[in-house]
């Protein structure tokens, strides 16, 4: 297939576009959000306030946002990639000066009606920027050192800013998403091998630096890693979250303790039960079946995104959709690993389920781009 074979007239126009949405994906998103409402209702002790109701409103808003974004042609969004990236970067800088401090880290800007977390936004705009970059870059150049270095800089600037907040979790996610996109774009594998080797060296160095004058991480971050490696060492202190979380998960058994019957969450043994640790409540109340079902829903969302991306012949659309899917995957995989005691507690919420406005809107915005890519995918003339 050549460029000339492409005909634009098969791209739907006007309100008809809505029929060409990736509806299975939209329904999956709604289903996951529905699980979230249910759990927020439960952890509030059987009440829509204070969490379930605002969350539903935000999801409705997010869904509308997704539709609006989906209606806009993907090539418009491609042209906006640079602007979006720079805006996010500016916001990240702004948060340094005007941000509110939450949990010992400067993370959000209070916009009055909502708290904006620029690092959340950055996850999407970085992927957009890189997708646009590889869309623009002639294929032959993509593995040349200079053209590899450029996207690396694009990734490292926001990573450095987020790390300064300090938010280790998000900066690692940014790094992973950016690196993942470069991998998808087809950058030569040798670069990745080199980076992985370097990372291994860096991790060793980070641990070597502990307790010395040039210590690279904050003490609490080291402690979190320690706790992760051996949570039992401090069951009432640092390891408390993970221990209680595992108890909640484990006590769910096959079928769970029943809706609103989870003692760990109801009696506040679980920390952050409506945000980062909401998955444990689900696992406690609906057991392995419930927890695995949610995992399956997430997997299906990824699957539908990947399927959409691979059938899309537009390079930007394809990369963007894959990047969004990767972001989403990292999001829930890190959260689940965290609550199941497989990763340090880094403060990553469960996408679409955890209570929180800014994360919800950013996720829906991202899927808006994926939908736009799906609606406006190039079609072969018949």
């Amino acid at each position: 297939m050549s460029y000339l074979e492409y005909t634009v007239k098969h791209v739907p126009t006007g309100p008809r576009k809505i029929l060409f949405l990736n509806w299975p994906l939209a329904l999956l998103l709604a289903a996951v959000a529905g699980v979230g409402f249910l759990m927020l209702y439960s952890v509030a002790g059987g009440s829509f306030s204070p969490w379930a109701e605002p969350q539903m409103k935000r999801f409705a808003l997010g869904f509308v946002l997704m539709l609006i974004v989906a209606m806009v042609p993907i090539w418009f969004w491609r042209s906006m990639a640079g602007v979006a990236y720079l805006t996010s970067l500016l916001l990240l800088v702004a948060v340094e000066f005007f941000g509110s401090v939450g949990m010992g880290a400067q993370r959000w800007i209070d916009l009055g009606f909502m708290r904006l977390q620029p690092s959340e936004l950055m996850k999407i705009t970085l992927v957009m920027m890189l997708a646009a970059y590889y869309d623009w870059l002639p294929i032959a150049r993509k593995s040349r050192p200079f053209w590899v270095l450029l996207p690396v800089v694009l990734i490292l600037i926001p990573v450095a800013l987020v790390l300064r907040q300090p938010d280790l979790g998000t900066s690692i996610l940014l790094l992973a998403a950016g690196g993942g996109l470069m991998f998808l774009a087809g950058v030569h594998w040798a670069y990745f091998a080199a980076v992985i080797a370097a990372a291994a060296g860096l991790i060793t160095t980070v641990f070597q630096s502990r307790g010395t004058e040039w210590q690279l991480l904050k003490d609490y971050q080291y402690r979190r890693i320690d706790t992760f490696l051996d949570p039992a060492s401090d069951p009432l202190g640092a390891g408390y979250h993970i221990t209680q979380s595992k108890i909640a998960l484990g006590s769910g058994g096959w079928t769970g303790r029943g809706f609103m019957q989870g003692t760990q969450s109801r009696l506040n043994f679980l920390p952050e039960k409506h945000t980062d640790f909401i998955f444990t409540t689900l696992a406690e109340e609906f057991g392995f079946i419930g927890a695995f079902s949610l995992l399956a829903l997430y997997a299906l969302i990824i699957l539908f995104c990947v399927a959409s991306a691979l059938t899309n012949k537009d390079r930007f659309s394809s990369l963007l959709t894959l990047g969004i899917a990767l972001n989403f995957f990292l999001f829930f995989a890190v959260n689940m690993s965290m609550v199941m005691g497989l990763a340090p507690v880094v403060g990553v919420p469960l996408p679409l389920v955890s209570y929180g406005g800014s994360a919800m809107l950013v996720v829906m915005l991202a899927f808006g781009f994926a939908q736009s890519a799906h609606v406006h995918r190039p079609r072969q003339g018949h």
Partner: protein
Amino acid sequence: MKRPRVDTEANHRLVTRRAAILGGVQLAFVGALGARMQFLQVDQADQFRLLAEENRINIRLIPPSRGEIFDRNGVPLARNVPSYRIVIVREDANDVEEVVQELSKLVSLDPGEVQRAMAEMKRSAPFLPITFADEVSWEDLSRVSVNAPALPGVTPEVGLSRVYPLGSDYAHVLGYVGPVSDYDLERIEDPDQLLRIPRFQIGKVGVEAKVEENLRGKAGARRVEVNAAGRVMRELDRQEGIAGSDMQLTIDAKLQSYVQARLSGESASAVVMDVRSGDLMAIASAPTFDPNLFVRGISSRDYKALTKNKYRPLASKTVQGTYPPGSTFKMITAMAALEAGLIGPDETVYCPGHLTVSGRRFHCWKRAGHGWVDLETSLKRSCDVYYYDLAVKVGIEKITAMANRFGLGERHDIPMSAVARGLTPTKDWKRSVHDQSWVVGDTVNASIGQGFMLASPLQLAVMTARLASGMAVKPRLIKTIDGIEQPSGAGESLGMNENNLRKMRRAMYAVVNDRRGTAYGSRIIEDAVRMAGKTGTSQVRNITAAERRAGVVRNEDLPWERRDHALFVNFAPYDEPKYAVAVVVEHGGGGSKAAAPIARDVTLQALYDGEPPLDAYPTKDRGRIETQQQVLRGIQPVANISGRDQA
């Protein structure tokens, strides 16, 4: 607006390939998450379920109500009454300072207590009730309840507290309870969980402490669901505890109150014991104190006053006090000689007022001497020389052995604190303790209950009961536990010659009823209830030869601490003995003057169950007795305490 470009076929394949790799990695990770889920939720579910239950379920103990104590006729001696506390819950009070200010207008709050409570409140979780006032009266509580709307967070709490309705009459017998201290916990091996309850009351001394195990009962338990902060969310189930056993003492409350009142003003003690069953009808020590003070937590000023008092109100003199038995011991010396066949019929001894034994002169209390005396006269007139003579013939081994058979030198098994063993000296004892060999002079001293010999009033009562009954009767203080009669103190026959015992009893009868007897002044003239007894006056100092030459100083002229102890033991009725009585008045002077009248009054009170006719007293005493009885009845406490019982 740019149109979308279509990617080259080759590049699309590359992207697809890369996507497949990354997708594979993602899939593998999802698989790993699923496997982890399965591991936690399926394989280890039971273990985690258990941990979750441990998290949420707390066991709270329900303190059982303590067993109550009654006298032999069912008069309550130790009871549990509701006690009220005022507690404040911080999270409900908003401004604690203000609430306390309001509260102090209604109830008098101890500033120290408030300060402690405030400090405790700062440390505790906001939903925990903190006690601001304990042992609040019903009236104060009502005032607080009426003003409840103005006092957010203030709630009354009801608990049970120990009360001794007859107060000081039983201070030494029952002892008292108090909150468990760290010291108590240290002493107890593997303490009951109950003892960890703050302010839980346990017996500290006396019966309360000695039969603590029976009185305490078994804790009940509440299983409650708590949240992560420890707040109780709901009760899951409860198992009531088993209340402590109620018990009855052998004490007769009416008699005990009388005896206690009769002893007041002296530093004295008295024991009334049933000669056959061994039941202790009264066991009183004066001065006494109010045990209720200790339950509430005694002030240091009150406590100091009690410990500094030279009459030692805290000491339970009936069992803890040991005194040289003096002449009351003469029956033992005589019995030892009789049983050994060393006193022939009508054998007499000449008393010139002293006896020289191995070069040392031992004086009779009567310097002029008693002339020729036989056994009965020697006891009646309490001639010392007669017993010095017996002592030399009998020897200390037989005397001590006889003392032991009569219950001296033995720690009687009754549930009171610090029951003393007394002392019946032997040659070995002297060698091991004093590192000196026994000399015959020691035997001479022992024969009249002086020297090393020591006995408690309880032991003297037991001795007298055994003399009166000829049985190895043992004292008994607890009559029933949970309505079950406890083993009686009645014992086997002492195995002594009944003729010898009869001789002793007749001699004791003469002491009280013969015109020349030392206790004639304290006789009972009602024939049916005549009593037999023996006076004793035990020296607490050595009379030097110089003093003796100058004329022995009269007791009244000595400082209190150096005066003689006055003792008296008796049983009655003579014909068919019922009660044995022992009275010791510390530093009271002569036994016949200080102790015998008390013993006689007590005996009559016991025999007539509180209503002795004046006819039983010698004519010249009746006027005094009548007024005395009126006074004593007036000060007998009423066996009831205010309206709190019904509250």
